[in-house]
């Protein structure tokens, strides 16, 4: 039993279907770069924070002089973003997955969408970044296959914070899929995040320009290098020194 609180400023009004987008730091920070960009560019409102002192390090995220939980929730009319401003300790990935599913149940979420990177050897010379999906049910797999926005990941392994989430969501009959984009492992990769955002915008049906993300990439990389340093210390613990997603 995990003791945690969702400290809500208000209860958001959400239309159906509701999507929960999860941005947790892992390979290339692909997920968190994408969710941070969504929060900023779509003007998502912060409405809650997750307080879980038993599983998170004693770190607060200070924004405009105000200390807050490093894990916060944002929303617009049909989307909630679960965004972490710190690396998730490897010992906390399962409790965090349970919390994410609790959040999904609390707000009647229809789909949980996670975003991650697939480290590839020759990322530096890759002109086009391939994207894949990993789903937690056959129904969802059929839908993703039909849409053709990404390729099926096929056979392999997924480790790290998104792995237990697939199972936890499935246990609770909530659809969850992971958008997996080829990326660097231990360097921030805004290009991979841009690919993920393009897919997400088509899937959910919102408009976003990733040109600005690429233009702002230098600022983003500068701002999040501390998070990348912290995350790369956790990465080997997620998968016993193996890449997070590998075929």
């Amino acid at each position, binding site marked *: 039993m995990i003791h945690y609180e969702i400290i809500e400023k208000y209860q958001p009004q959400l239309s159906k279907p509701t999507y929960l987008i999860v941005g947790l730091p892992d390979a290339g920070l692909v997920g968190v770069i994408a969710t941070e960009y969504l929060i900023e560019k779509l003007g998502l409102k912060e409405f809650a924070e997750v307080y879980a002192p038993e599983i998170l390090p004693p770190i607060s995220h200070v924004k405009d002089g105000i200390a807050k939980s490093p894990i916060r929730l944002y929303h617009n009319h049909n989307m909630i973003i679960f965004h972490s401003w710190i690396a998730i300790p490897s010992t906390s990935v399962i409790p965090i997955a349970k919390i994410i599913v609790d959040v999904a149940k609390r707000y009647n979420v229809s789909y949980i969408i996670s975003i991650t990177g697939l480290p590839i050897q020759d990322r530096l010379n890759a002109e086009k970044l391939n994207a894949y999906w990993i789903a937690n049910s056959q129904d969802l797999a059929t839908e993703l296959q039909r849409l053709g926005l990404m390729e099926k990941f096929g056979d392999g392994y997924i480790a790290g914070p998104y792995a237990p989430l697939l199972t936890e969501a499935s246990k609770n009959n909530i659809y969850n899929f992971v958008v997996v984009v080829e990326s*660097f492992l*231990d*360097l921030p990769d805004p290009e991979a995040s841009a690919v993920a955002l393009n897919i997400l915008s088509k899937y959910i049906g919102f408009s976003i320009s990733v040109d600005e993300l690429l233009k702002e*990439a230098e*600022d983003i990389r500068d701002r999040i*290098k501390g998070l*990348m340093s912290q995350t790369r210390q956790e990465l080997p613990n997620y998968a016993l020194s193996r890449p997070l997603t590998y075929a």
Partner: protein
Amino acid sequence: MPVFKDLDELIRNLIKKEEEKIKRIEKEIDKEFERLTRTFQSPLYSFTETENEYDYLIDLPKVDLSTLKVEARYQKLFVACKTKDGREYRLLISLPEDADPATTEVSRAKWLLRVSIKKRR
């Protein structure tokens, strides 16, 4: 000069003294590099190895390339530069034993600095 009963012992002793001297020099170099990097930001970097060379990919956001300095010697790679907003990056990496610092090549690849060093044959 001490006296040795055989030539082999004399040579072993000379080699030992030379090794101690090299270790002392290495320690001094490490201390100097540590002093140079102590008060500066350290950039993120990634390392890959192929059959023939080692590649270091270094992320230097906002770098002012005119200030970039890359040196490889004594099995150490040292990178220093300033950013456009006046901060400084410094990085010191110990190179693998078979890396040949004389073959160091520096290039830009996407948004990263790439330092390639060939392996000794």
